[in-house]
C-alpha cells in the first residue's frame, strides 16, 4: 500500500515546536442488567449455563460477548467474571465454560457492556465436535471475521457533538462476501448509515458508549463484533505517560502511567479497558493529530489495565500502573488444542477446512477459539499456500497463534499501539514479490535524529549453512521437500543450523529461497540499529506490526563507524514512544534490523537414520525418524540443478541446459540393475515452444547387444517421472544415426507434452537380458564350400581369439529344403546375427588352431549346392550394458508447484 506518512502529514509530524498533552479514559462499564442466580449446582465442574431470576432492566440488552460479574453482593465480582457466550435468555444465562468457580444459588449477576479477551473452549463428545461449548458445525462455521478498528477509541467533545465512523473490513475463509449489516450504539444523539459499512454515530455528551455490529455474509452466516467509544472533554486532566513501548518479539505494546490521580483508585479495576489519548499542539496553537486510523487519530494507545502492576503512592495517593495491549493478555489466556485438516470438498465438521491455508487455520483460532476477532482487528498474512493439516497444542492463545503462523510461514502476530493485530512474515523472509510489494513507511535522514545512531554490526557470519524442510500440498499429496544453502559445502564462517522443518511451501523454488533468506537473515550485517527521532512518529508502531520498511540514507559523518547508507532498507524491531513531561515533546526510539535477501538454496537429501542393519534406530533418539516421502528409494545421492524461474513457462521461454546426474550410472541387462533415475523437478516444454521441446541428451557407453539402432528402442526406454516414481511421460529416442558400435556416443530423447508439464525427474530403463555381442573386423580368408563337404575348408586360427564367419547369401539345399549359412564346424557359436550382406554371421572364440568351415547342416550327405564364406577377425563386446557418461537436459522450466 502507499505509505500514509508522506507529504503534508510527514511535514507536520516533523514540525518543530510540536508538543502534546496526554489523557486517559478508563472504562467503568455500564451496567446493562442485573439478576440473581436461580440455580442449584450439583457440580462446579464444566459449568456453562445457569438459570437466573430477579432481573432488573431489560434482559434482551445483554448480548453475546458482554461480561458478567458474579458476586456475593450486588455489583461485586468476588466470585468471578465470565463471558456472556449467547444473548441472555428469558431465564437462562449461557456463559463461557468454567470449572471451579464458586457459583451458588442467589448470588448476584451484574451484566456490563464491556467485552474482554477470553478463550472459547471447544467440546468433543465421541465424534461430535462443538465450538464454544455447544455450537454445532453449520452454515455459520465460516462466518466473516470482521474488523472495525481499535477495541476502544476516544473522541474529544470540543463542540456540541462529536461523531465517529468505525472502519470495516471482512475476511471469509470460504470467499463469502458481506450481504448486509446492522450497527447499534448506546447513548447516541444521532446516527446515520446504520445498515452500511460506513455508519455515523454522533454523541453530544461525555460518556462511555458501546458499539455493536451484526454482519450477515452471502451464505447467511452471522458475525457480531463490539467496540467501545469514550467521549471526553478537552479539559480532562493530563496524565504522565512514562512510556509506550512495543516490540515484535512480545507481539505488541504496553504503556506505563505514573502519578495518576484522575479517578478514585477503586475505578482502577484489573483488566479495565484503558484508552490513552492526547491533544497535539504546534507552538502555541492546537494542531491536528495524526495516525493510521481515520477518526481515531487522537487515540494513542489501547489496552487493559494490569492489576498486578498497580501501586499507590502512600503520600500522594496517586496511582502508577501498566496497561497491556492484546498480546500480553493473549499470552496469559489458556487456549484449547486445535486440529484442522484440508478437504477438497464441502466441509462437514469443524475440523475440516476447504482448501485450507495457514490463514484459514489462524482464522479459526482468532474467531472460534478466542474472542480476539470479536473485539480486535486481526489481519492475516494473505498467503495462499495450501496446507494439509494444522495442529495446535494447548498453550497460551498468543503462543498458539504464533506457533501456527511460525510453523507454517515464519510469520507471527504483532499488535499496534491501538490493539489491532497483524499476522505477517518478517520482511527479510517474504517472497520476492512480497518484498517488492512491501510498503516503505518513510525515509530517515540524519536531520531526524536527536541522538547518534547506535549500530550493532556483525561482520563475521554466524551461520555457515542452513538446512530447512517443509511440505508442499496440492490437495492430494503432501510431499516433504528440503533445501540447503549455500549448498553442500558450508560457508567458511559460522555454524550450521536447521531452523525449521515444518514450513508450507508453494514450490521447491520457494523452499530454496527461504533457505537462503533464513541464512541471510541470521547473518545480517546490521543486526540492530537504534535510531531516536526527535519527533513523535505516530505510524511507527503500526508499521512495525505490519512489517513495513523504513529506509535510511546516512553520510559517513553521521554514523559512528563511518558507514554510508543510501536508502538502506530496515524493518522495525521495536518502538518506544518517549514523552518528556517537562517539555511536552515526544520522541520516537526505533530499533531497526537490516532487511536481507539470500541466494536460493539447493535441494538436498537428508540422511536416513538407521542402525547397522539398516533399520530405523529409535533409541537413543527420543523422536521418531524423520518423515520422508514415498519414493525415497529413488533419490540419488547428487542434488538436482537449480532451475531458475518462478514456475511460469511461457511459449517463448529461453533455451537452457542443465547437467543432471543419473544414479546408478551403469545398467546391466543380465541380473543387474535395470533402472537409473535422476531427480530434477522441472517442467517439460511442448514442441510448439519457440526454442523447441525438452530434450535429454545422453552420452552413453553401449555394450553387449546395445547397438545404437534399431535395437536401441527395443532395449532401452527413457521416461519422465513424478515424485512417486511413476512414469508420466515417455521420451522419444532419436534413431536417425545408427552406429553399430558406440563406446561414448550420444542419443537424444525428446519429451514433448502438449502443454508444459511438471515432472520430478527422469528414469532410464534397460530391458532385461544377457545380450552378448561381438564386433566383426577385417577379412582373414574367404572361400566357397560345397554343401555336402563334411570336412570343409581349412582355416588357421589363434586359440583364444574371436572370429566370425558369414555366408554370402548363397542358397543351398539341405535335402528337405533351401537353406543359407555357414559355420566353423569344430567350434561352438557364441552368438549369431543377420545382416544385409549375409544371412547369418556366427561368432566364435577359437579353442584350436586348425578348424574347418562347412555349411551349417550336420547331415552333409543329402545336401546339394554350395555357399561362399568370409572369415573375419572379431572382438567381444560383452553382455548387454549401458554406461551413462553424462546427461544434459535442454529446454525446461522451473516447476510450477
Amino acid at each position, binding site marked *: 500500500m502507499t505509505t500514509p506518512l508522506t507529504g503534508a502529514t510527514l511535514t507536520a509530524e516533523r514540525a518543530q*515546536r510540536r508538543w502534546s*498533552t496526554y489523557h486517559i479514559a478508563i472504562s467503568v462499564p455500564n451496567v446493562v442488567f442485573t439478576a440473581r442466580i436461580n440455580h442449584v449446582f450439583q457440580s462446579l465442574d464444566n459449568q456453562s449455563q445457569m438459570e437466573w431470576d430477579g432481573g432488573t432492566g431489560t434482559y434482551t440488552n445483554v448480548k453475546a460477548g458482554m461480561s458478567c460479574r458474579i458476586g456475593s453482593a450486588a455489583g461485586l465480582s468476588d466470585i468471578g467474571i465470565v463471558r456472556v457466550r449467547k444473548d441472555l435468555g428469558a431465564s437462562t444465562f449461557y456463559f463461557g465454560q468454567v470449572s471451579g468457580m464458586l457459583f451458588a444459588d442467589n448470588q448476584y449477576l451484574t451484566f456490563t457492556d464491556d467485552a474482554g479477551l477470553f478463550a472459547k473452549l471447544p467440546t468433543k463428545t465421541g465424534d461430535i465436535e462443538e465450538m464454544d461449548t455447544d455450537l454445532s458445525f453449520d452454515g455459520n462455521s465460516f462466518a466473516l471475521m470482521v474488523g472495525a478498528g481499535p477495541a476502544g477509541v476516544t473522541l474529544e467533545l470540543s463542540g456540541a457533538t462529536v461523531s465517529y465512523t468505525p472502519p470495516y473490513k471482512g475476511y471469509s475463509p470460504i470467499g463469502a462476501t458481506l450481504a448486509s449489516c446492522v450497527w447499534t450504539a448506546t447513548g447516541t444523539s444521532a446516527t446515520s448509515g446504520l445498515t452500511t459499512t460506513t455508519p455515523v454515530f454522533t454523541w453530544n455528551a461525555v460518556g462511555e458508549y458501546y458499539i455493536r455490529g451484526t454482519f450477515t455474509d452471502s451464505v447467511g452466516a452471522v458475525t457480531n463484533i463490539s467496540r467501545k467509544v469514550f467521549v471526553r472533554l478537552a479539559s480532562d486532566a493530563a496524565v504522565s505517560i512514562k512510556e509506550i513501548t512495543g516490540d515484535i518479539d512480545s507481539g505488541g505494546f504496553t504503556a506505563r502511567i505514573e502519578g495518576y490521580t484522575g479517578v478514585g483508585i477503586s475505578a482502577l479495576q484489573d483488566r479495565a479497558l484503558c484508552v490513552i489519548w492526547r491533544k497535539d499542539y504546534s507552538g*502555541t*496553537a492546537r494542531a491536528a493529530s495524526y495516525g493510521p486510523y481515520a477518526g481515531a487519530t487522537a487515540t494513542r494507545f489501547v489496552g487493559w489495565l494490569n492489576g498486578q502492576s498497580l501501586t499507590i503512592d502512600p503520600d500522594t495517593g496517586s496511582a502508577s500502573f501498566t496497561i497491556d495491549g492484546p498480546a500480553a493478555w493473549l499470552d496469559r489466556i489458556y487456549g484449547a488444542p486445535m486440529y484442522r485438516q484440508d478437504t477438497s470438498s464441502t466441509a462437514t465438521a469443524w475440523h475440516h477446512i476447504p482448501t485450507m491455508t495457514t490463514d484459514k487455520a489462524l482464522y479459526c483460532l482468532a474467531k472460534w477459539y478466542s474472542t480476539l476477532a470479536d473485539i480486535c482487528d486481526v489481519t492475516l498474512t494473505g498467503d495462499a499456500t495450501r496446507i494439509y493439516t494444522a495442529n495446535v497444542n494447548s498453550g497460551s492463545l498468543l503462543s498458539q497463534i504464533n506457533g501456527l503462523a511460525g510453523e507454517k510461514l515464519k510469520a507471527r502476530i504483532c499488535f499496534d499501539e491501538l490493539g489491532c493485530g497483524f499476522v505477517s512474515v518478517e520482511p527479510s523472509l517474504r517472497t520476492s514479490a512480497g518484498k517488492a510489494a512491501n510498503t516503505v513507511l518513510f525515509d530517515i535522514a540524519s536531520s531526524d535524529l*536527536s541522538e547518534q545512531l547506535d549500530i550493532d554490526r556483525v561482520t563475521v557470519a554466524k551461520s555457515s549453512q542452513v538446512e530447512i524442510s517443509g511440505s508442499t500440498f496440492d490437495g492430494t499429496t503432501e510431499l516433504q521437500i528440503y533445501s540447503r544453502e549455500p549448498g553442500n559445502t558450508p560457508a567458511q564462517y559460522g555454524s550450521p543450523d536447521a531452523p525449521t522443518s515444518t514450513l508450507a511451501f508453494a514450490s521447491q523454488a520457494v523452499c530454496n529461497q527461504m533457505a537462503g533468506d533464513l541464512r541471510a537473515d541470521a547473518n545480517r550485517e546490521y543486526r540492530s540499529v537504534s535510531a531516536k527521532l*526527535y519527533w513523535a512518529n505516530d505510524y511507527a508502531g503500526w508499521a512495525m506490526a505490519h512489517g513495513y520498511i523504513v529506509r535510511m540514507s546516512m553520510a559517513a559523518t553521521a554514523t559512528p563507524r563511518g558507514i554510508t547508507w543510501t536508502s538502506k532498507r530496515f524493518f522495525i524491531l521495536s518502538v518506544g514512544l518517549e514523552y518528556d513531561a517537562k*517539555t*511536552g*515533546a515526544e520522541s520516537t526510539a526505533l530499533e531497526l534490523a537490516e532487511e536481507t535477501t539470500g541466494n536460493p538454496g539447493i535441494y538436498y537429501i537428508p540422511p536416513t537414520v538407521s542402525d547397522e542393519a539398516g533399520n530405523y534406530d529409535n533409541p537413543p533418539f527420543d523422536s521418531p525418524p524423520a518423515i520422508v516421502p514415498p519414493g525415497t528409494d529413488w533419490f540419488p545421492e547428487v542434488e538436482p540443478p537449480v532451475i531458475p524461474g518462478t514456475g511460469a513457462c511461457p511459449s517463448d521461454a529461453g533455451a537452457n541446459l542443465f547437467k543432471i546426474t543419473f544414479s546408478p550410472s551403469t545398467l546391466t541387462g543380465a541380473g543387474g540393475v535395470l533402472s537409473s533415475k535422476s531427480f530434477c523437478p522441472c517442467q517439460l516444454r511442448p514442441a510448439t515452444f519457440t526454442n523447441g521441446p525438452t530434450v535429454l541428451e545422453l552420452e552413453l557407453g553401449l555394450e553387449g547387444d546395445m547397438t545404437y539402432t534399431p535395437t536401441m528402442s527395443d532395449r532401452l526406454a527413457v521416461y519422465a517421472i513424478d515424485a512417486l516414481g511413476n512414469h508420466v511421460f515417455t521420451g522419444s529416442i532419436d534413431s536417425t544415426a545408427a552406429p553399430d558400435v558406440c563406446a561414448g556416443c550420444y542419443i537424444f530423447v525428446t519429451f514433448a507434452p502438449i502443454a508444459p508439464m511438471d515432472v520430478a525427474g527422469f528414469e532410464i530403463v534397460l530391458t532385461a537380458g544377457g545380450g552378448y555381442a561381438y564386433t566383426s573386423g577385417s577379412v582373414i580368408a574367404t572361400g566357397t564350400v560345397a554343401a555336402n563337404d563334411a570336412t570343409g575348408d581349412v582355416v588357421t586360427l589363434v586359440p583364444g581369439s574371436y572370429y566370425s564367419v558369414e555366408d554370402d547369401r548363397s542358397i543351398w539345399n539341405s535335402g528337405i529344403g533351401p537353406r543359407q549359412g555357414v559355420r566353423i564346424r569344430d567350434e561352438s557359436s557364441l552368438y549369431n546375427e543377420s545382416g544385409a550382406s549375409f544371412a547369418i554371421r556366427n561368432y566364435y572364440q577359437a579353442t584350436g588352431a586348425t578348424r574347418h568351415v562347412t555349411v551349417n547342416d550336420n547331415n552333409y550327405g543329402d545336401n546339394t549346392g554350395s555357399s561362399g564364406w568370409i572369415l573375419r577377425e572379431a572382438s567381444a563386446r560383452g553382455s548387454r550394458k549401458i554406461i551413462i557418461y553424462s546427461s544434459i537436459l535442454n529446454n525446461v522450466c522451473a516447476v510450477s508447484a
Partner: protein
Amino acid sequence: MGVSRQCMIGTSAGAMVTFASLGISAPLVSFDAGEQVQTSDGNYITRGFSSIILDWASITQEEIEKLRSYRGATVYIYAPVDVARAYKSFSSIMVWPKREDGIKFQLKYTHLVAV
C-alpha cells in the same frame, strides 16, 4: 483604546489584571519558545511547548502570597512573545518554584496555548 504594554494574569481569559493592579512589582519577562535539540546533521530544532518566565530580582512575601492564589489551575497570561514585544494572551500552567525565599523569585508559565 490602545494595546496594553503590561503583563497581565488571570484565572480566565476575560479577567486578566496587571501585576500593578495586584500590588506586585513588575517582573522581568522572557519568552522560551521550547527545548533546543541538536540533530545528527548538526542543526538545531526547537521542540516542546513554549513558556513565559517571570523573574523578580526582589519580591516581598506579601507579593508571593498574592501570586500563590493563582496556583493550581489553568492560568491565563498576557505577555510579550517576541523581540518585537508583540503581546498575546495564553492559557498556561503556572509552575511554582521550589524556592520562595523572597529575594529572587521566578514563575514559569508553561504549556502556552494562544487564546
